């Protein structure tokens, strides 16, 4: 195993090895060249001409990796980290689980402000990339990529784009997912239902997919759309041409006719008992999942990363279906990227860069892709025989592989997370309290405009 990882490291850093980088072999001896102390003196060297020696790891160092990978992934995390530690002698990585993406966000920004206790490498949920880039929290990786000749071209284009801010490569794609509609294939076959591909087909699908008891109460919901994260419903808006943030960067169209119509439609479905709105409560997610597992929902919209989870827990066949589109049928990238906080010293950053390359490598990526529902990130997997082999193991992923080009980067704006919170709150209020959709959405738009202007 150790050897395999060493080989892989060698492959990943094949060009950097020229400069004598340590990653190349299990001997792990650092190259003599470069000289000690160069790292410190050249801190902030991203503007300097590319000099590979600048990014070498020359001394033993222990670095921290913050992640948000829950217990179900801990075996993989342990294995990946220990493989890396064993593969070379200089860098020791300590993985630390911080909490959910939002908890990690809080911790990271706090550490950045204090300038102490920063991790060398951290994951970040995709929508935070812009906030971090704008706030100067992340190290621009472009010079590192150039200096070490890292092959960034192999990542899917949308994924690389999603990891950028303002044209700068401030992060790299790590565990990537997208929204997907999981459906109970056995039940769908039995009911003679095909999954909807456009928003217009939704009405018919919702009606047909719902089973009602004699007293009119719902026994099986046609679908459930999560309300605790706007990520799950925002594509419906985007695909109908609603500008969540206008080009001027300070206004939203979420109060406009088209946007209101979508929300109105969802409210109608809720009222008709075809679906229910999950709301934003703590247990919303597990309740929704439980409904699907126990056959009380024909389908649910959720993240593709939970594929294996669903497969493990459901005793029926699971299908995946691309979300119904409209003018376009785009979806968005979810999951997390990896980045290096900018306030670290250069020696730490250099070590971090080595580890980051390793984590984003094809092999590590495939470890996750096979064991979970995260997607392969590499073109050399996605577009080759390897991809076919992957699909044989997980046929449901065909829906994702067919539409790879349609997976887009997230909207990037400094005020995004505040906008998102307001949005999901209003949606929950309107759906669950049965309020006036028009008034709710318009009022929300005002509030969002305020946030955008102030960000």
């Amino acid at each position, binding site marked *: 195993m150790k050897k395999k990882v060493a080989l892989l490291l060698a492959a990943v850093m094949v060009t950097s090895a020229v400069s004598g980088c340590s990653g190349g072999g299990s001997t792990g001896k650092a190259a003599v060249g470069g000289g000690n102390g160069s790292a410190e003196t050249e801190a902030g060297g991203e503007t300097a001409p590319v000099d590979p020696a600048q990014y070498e790891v020359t001394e033993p160092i222990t670095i921290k990796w913050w992640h948000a990978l829950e217990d179900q992934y801990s075996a993989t995390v342990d294995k990946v980290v220990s493989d890396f530690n064993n593969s070379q002698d200089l860098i020791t990585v300590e993985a630390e689980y911080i909490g959910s993406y*939002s908890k990690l966000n*809080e911790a990271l*920004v*706090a550490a*950045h*402000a204090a300038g102490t206790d920063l991790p060398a490498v951290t994951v970040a949920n995709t929508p935070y990339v812009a*906030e*971090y880039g*704008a*706030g*100067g*929290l992340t190290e621009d990786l472009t010079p590192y990529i150039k200096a070490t000749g890292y092959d960034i071209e192999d990542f899917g284009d949308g994924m690389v784009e999603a990891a950028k801010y303002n044209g700068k490569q401030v992060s790299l794609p790590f565990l990537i997912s997208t929204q997907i509609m999981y459906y109970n294939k056995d039940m769908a076959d039995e009911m003679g239902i095909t999954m909807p591909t456009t928003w217009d087909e939704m009405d018919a699908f919702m009606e047909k997919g719902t089973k009602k008891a004699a007293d009119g109460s719902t026994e099986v919901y046609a679908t459930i759309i999560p309300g605790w994260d706007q990520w799950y419903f925002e594509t419906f808006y985007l695909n109908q041409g609603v500008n969540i943030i206008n080009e001027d960067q300070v206004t939203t169209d979420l109060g406009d006719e088209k946007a209101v119509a979508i929300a109105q439609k969802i409210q109608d479905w809720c009222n008709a008992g075809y679906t229910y709105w*999950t*709301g*934003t*409560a*703590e*247990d*919303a997610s597990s*309740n929704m999942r*439980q*409904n699907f597992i126990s056959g009380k929902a024909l389908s649910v919209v959720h993240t593709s990363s939970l594929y294996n989870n669903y497969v493990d827990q459901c005793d029926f066949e699971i299908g995946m279906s691309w979300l119904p589109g409209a003018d376009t049928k785009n979806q968005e990238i979810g999951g997390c990227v990896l980045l290096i906080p900018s306030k670290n010293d250069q020696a730490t950053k250099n070590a971090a860069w080595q580890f980051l390359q390793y984590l984003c490598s094809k092999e590590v990526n495939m470890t996750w892709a096979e064991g979970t529902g995260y997607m392969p990130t590499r073109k050399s997997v996605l577009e080759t025989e390897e991809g076919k082999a992957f699909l044989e193991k997980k046929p449901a992923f065909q829906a994702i592989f067919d539409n790879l080009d349609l997976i887009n980067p997230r909207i990037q704006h*400094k005020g995004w*997370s*505040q906008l998102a919170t307001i949005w999901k*709150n*209003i949606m*929950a*209020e309107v759906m*669950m*309290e049965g309020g006036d959709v028009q008034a709710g959405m318009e009022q929300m738009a005002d*509030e969002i405009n*305020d*946030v955008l202007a102030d960000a």
Partner: protein
Amino acid sequence: MNEKKINPRKISAVKDFTCVLPVLIFLAVFTYYPIVELLRISFTDWNLLNDTWQYVGFKNWNWLFAGSGNKYLWNSLKVTVLYSIGELSITLIGGMIFALIFNRMTNSFAAMRAVIFMPKYVAMSSAAVVFLWILNTDSGIFNYLLSLIGVSPVDWLGDRNMALISVLMLTGWRCIGYGMMVYLSAMMGIATDYYEAAALDGANAVQRFFKITLPMLSPTTLFLFVTTFLSSMKVFQSVDILTQGGPYRSTEVFVYNIYRYAMVDFRMDRASTVGIFFFVLLLIVTVATMKVSNGNVTYDS
């Protein structure tokens, strides 16, 4: 008295002062200075995400009283007041009723009292996750029990009309025994001759309760009122674990509001502004309750 021996006295005074000095220094650094700092930050545009900040005058105050912050300020004030009323009712009325029920001086009742009081010592976070589980919409036991009497499932934490009630259930569970104990120990202090005299006058139990017990307990009630009120205004933990201020801010109490601006949005400027407002509010409430407690109470003379 002995003015001549001024020297040893002075030394003694210095030594006595040294005993309290560490505490004074500590309070200066960790209590009083932060208030000044809070006020200063409220005049800046300090966002934790940005590397620099500058003074912006009354911008944040304007935001709080005339801008988009206003709506949520009043919302959190309303929620906090509702919560306080709830906690006060449970502690005062519930505590009193419990005190009457458990007002028997036998060993078995003493044991039961101890058990009723115990939740006060159960860590709030443990209690909160237990309630999270009990109140779970689909698999919680509470909804199951309700279904036995024909009530359809209630979304305890996701429904805006229920969420605060759910938080109060947790609070009530933890503090009702405390109210009971405080009332009971005060009841034992009431001299029995009052009751005997009243009994001779032909007063029944209900009359005796309202004519004697309640008035005699008014200092206790006031004490409970003041301490419970002040602590209820600072509620955070139960809300943080049960609802995170949701659904859609319907349980966003004051401290949670500040916490959100500071630790979720990283707007130190806004959080500080609300923080100062909260501080002034607490001060007014404290002074007001102190004023009230100086009159208006029946003491056993």
